[in-house]
């Protein structure tokens, strides 16, 4: 298969940035999207040109490192799929694809398709944990958790922190990310003691990081590679109201 790629190239945060066009030739339909980029990069490198920078690591859809806008969609056209798990057979031969980084004020650009998502780490630092020092734990079965709650908590905990929700949202809101962590921990009895503090602190840090507000458009859920549900956002809103009341 052959593709024309319009790729955002930007040397660093201070550079202006521009689109450049590349040809991806003789690509196997069984190759992944990132493998297609590897082929292009190898050709560039062989000519002594700098490869297109993009984040990636596990290439299994779980580490959350990869991610880019592919022709206007976060992680490309396929639902519930990270960029690394996207295969070229999902595209038409001869197609032109536009590759851009996540665009959000809270995710400053690093280079080409690489952005700085450390704001997510700061949000977790604000309260995305259960305060239990090593060695403090009671027997794991001393506190039963109803299976349904455990399953719901796991659904929320499946978030990989890739940032697609922010990139897909017209307001660049991080509500899906924050609500997934708040839900995961609020749904478990272990997380109950810190519910109020956690919710308030995480939301505050999210606002300070420059993410936008949620206007319930649902683009985040539609583009999330892990299908994290926006019902988590509803839960976060309830948790927040409850926290405000109790604090």
């Amino acid at each position, binding site marked *: 298969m052959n593709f024309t790629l319009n790729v955002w190239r930007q040397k660093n945060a201070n550079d202006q940035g521009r689109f450049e066009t590349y040809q991806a030739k003789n690509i196997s339909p069984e190759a992944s999207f990132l493998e297609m980029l590897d082929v292009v990069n190898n050709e560039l490198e062989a000519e002594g040109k700098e490869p297109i920078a993009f984040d990636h690591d596990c290439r299994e859809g*779980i580490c959350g490192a990869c991610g880019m806008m592919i022709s206007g969609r976060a992680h490309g056209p396929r639902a519930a799929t990270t960029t690394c798990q996207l295969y070229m057979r999902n595209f038409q031969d001869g197609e032109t694809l536009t590759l851009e980084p996540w665009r959000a004020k809270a995710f400053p650009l690093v280079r080409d398709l690489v952005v*700085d998502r450390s704001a997510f780490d700061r949000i977790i630092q604000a309260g995305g944990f259960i*305060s239990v020092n090593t060695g403090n734990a009671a027997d794991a079965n001393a506190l039963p958790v*109803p299976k349904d709650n455990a399953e719901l*908590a796991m659904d929320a905990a499946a978030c990989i922190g890739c940032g697609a929700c922010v990139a897909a949202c017209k307001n660049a809101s991080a509500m899906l990310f924050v609500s997934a962590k708040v839900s995961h921990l609020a749904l478990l009895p272990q997380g109950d003691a810190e519910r109020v503090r956690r919710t308030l602190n995480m939301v505050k840090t999210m606002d300070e990081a420059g993410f936008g507000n949620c206007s319930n458009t649902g683009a985040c859920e539609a583009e999330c590679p892990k299908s994290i549900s926006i019902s988590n956002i509803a839960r976060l809103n309830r948790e927040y109201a409850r926290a405000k009341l109790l604090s």
Partner: protein
Amino acid sequence: MELKSNCPGGPIEKRWEDYKFHMKLVNPANKRKYTIIVVGTGLAGASAAATLGELGYNVLSFCYQDSPRRAHSIAAQGGINAAKNYQNDGDSAYRLFYDTVKGGEWRARESNVYRLAEISVNIIDQCAAQGVPFAREYGGLLANRSFGGALVSRTFYARGQTGQQLLLGAYQAMMRQVTAGKVKVFSRHEMLDLVVADGAARGIVTRDMVSGKIERFAGDAVLLCTGGYGNLYYLSTNAKGCNVTSIWRAYKHGACMANPCYTQIHPTCIPVSGDYQSKLTLMSESLRNDGRVWVPKTAGDKRAANEIPDAERDYYLERKYPTYGNLAPRDIASRAAKEQCDAGRGVGPGGKGVYLDFRDALKAQGQKKLEEKYKELFEMYHNITNEDGYKQPMRIYPAVHYTMGGLWVDYNLMSSVPGCFVLGEANFSDHGANRLGASALMQGLADGYFIIPYTLGHYLASSKHPKVDANHAAFKDAEDAVTGKLKKLLAIKGKRTVDSFHKELGLLMWEHCGMARTEKSLTELLQKIPALREEFWKNLNVPGSDADLNQALERAGRVADFLEFGELTARDALERKESCGGHFRVEYQTEEGECKRDDDNFCHVAAWEYKGEDQKPVRNVEPLEFKYVELGVRSYK
């Protein structure tokens, strides 16, 4: 060099407890005076950083990803072992200990393995308290499953995302310490050298991968938790960034490298589909609980899988190993698959695959039940291969997955360089010649949460530390070496890309030092690697500069180290004239084609000592003794 394991004596059940009691403690008020450098944020590094922060130490934490949460541990699917015996099926710390020693073919220390089994139960408690959403039964209690190489159900799991959930638990605990001011995180920082000053590890030199800045960090001890080096083979199930660099740097400063020839090749991976392929995807071993492995009885049978009647299928694992059947340990299942494919009975493109068939499980349990257990795995398989595992059997083939070898450490997890500790997959410690499924997560967390907090304290309290800061000459030397090497890589300006060298090295390793090794293949390999290395340094092309984000340069540095390390691996494989676990020497096999160990001559750890650039490394030996699990034949029949 004499390798002192520092293992305690006495009854095995009491060793760790007694040892802990006799260790020196650091005065709580003094802990804040110590700075501990932790390289790596996988299960081992994140759990260590969090726990040491909680205890009051100042922790500097490094990783090459943009966030600590993305360490390769995140990709572990299947589960984590613990001897809880919640299932009442006869499990105990002793049985887990026994299974692990036997599974590793009597090539690990009894003291270490027992400690691991003993601690396993605390790990589950800790993780549950952190909110790790483990799978549960309707009664709300924790669920278990069985895993390759075990006859009891002792594996805890969180769907197919156990590593992710355990890592997020450890990462969150670590983030909590960031807020407490005890842990400082340096993401996108690659460690490029270890600094040894006045005989002890006192710091590291890193490259800020965004600005290109080379930086020095000084501390009182360095913990290397940098994971495995399976990417030596280019194609592996590891994340793309996994590397040998940090431990290879430590090796060059005197840390011995133990058993690099023990490579785990996992039987259930999606087969290779083309030369553009960048990695291989693991299909969790848990699938072997319900999937049956088979090949057509006749070589070259081209019929579709579903058209081949049972009588013409060879369920070779069930046939060869009636007790364990499809749950035979990884090394055994991998070799059996290779044997079938070598005999022409393999399936799929190039005949490099065997079937993993869910037909019978679907009949017995229905698709819904299987979805509950393996939904993501079936989806992943479908997405990658465009085939539906519910409708036709999956195709699988072995791939490099885990490295049992690594830096030699004593019972305290300290390498042969004082003050340089090694945790998780990066050390050689607990799995012997073969690791059992769901035991790596257990080991990483045991090392980080429950062992290092004690042994590090003992080291700090019992040795004198002259103040060393980053102006010490050793830091300057290390920085100069790092800068020099980067400049050299950029200056070659030859014709070949980094990946082309990495692929060539990987293929050489796979063919000469993969699932089967011979004296001939290894001798050849020992000639081919230096030649490839020479070409690398003459004909590599790394574009760009070292003053900003340069992913080609990052890869080049890692491949340069693989090109040296591969040679040591081959040497180790050549010298170990026996077969055991992840090291199968064709010359040493039983009549049935199983491993033939040589306990008289090789019941030891081989730990290689660096002697200088053009010198042969020295093979040091630490003898292994077995008092509890008697040396025996590892039979899974």
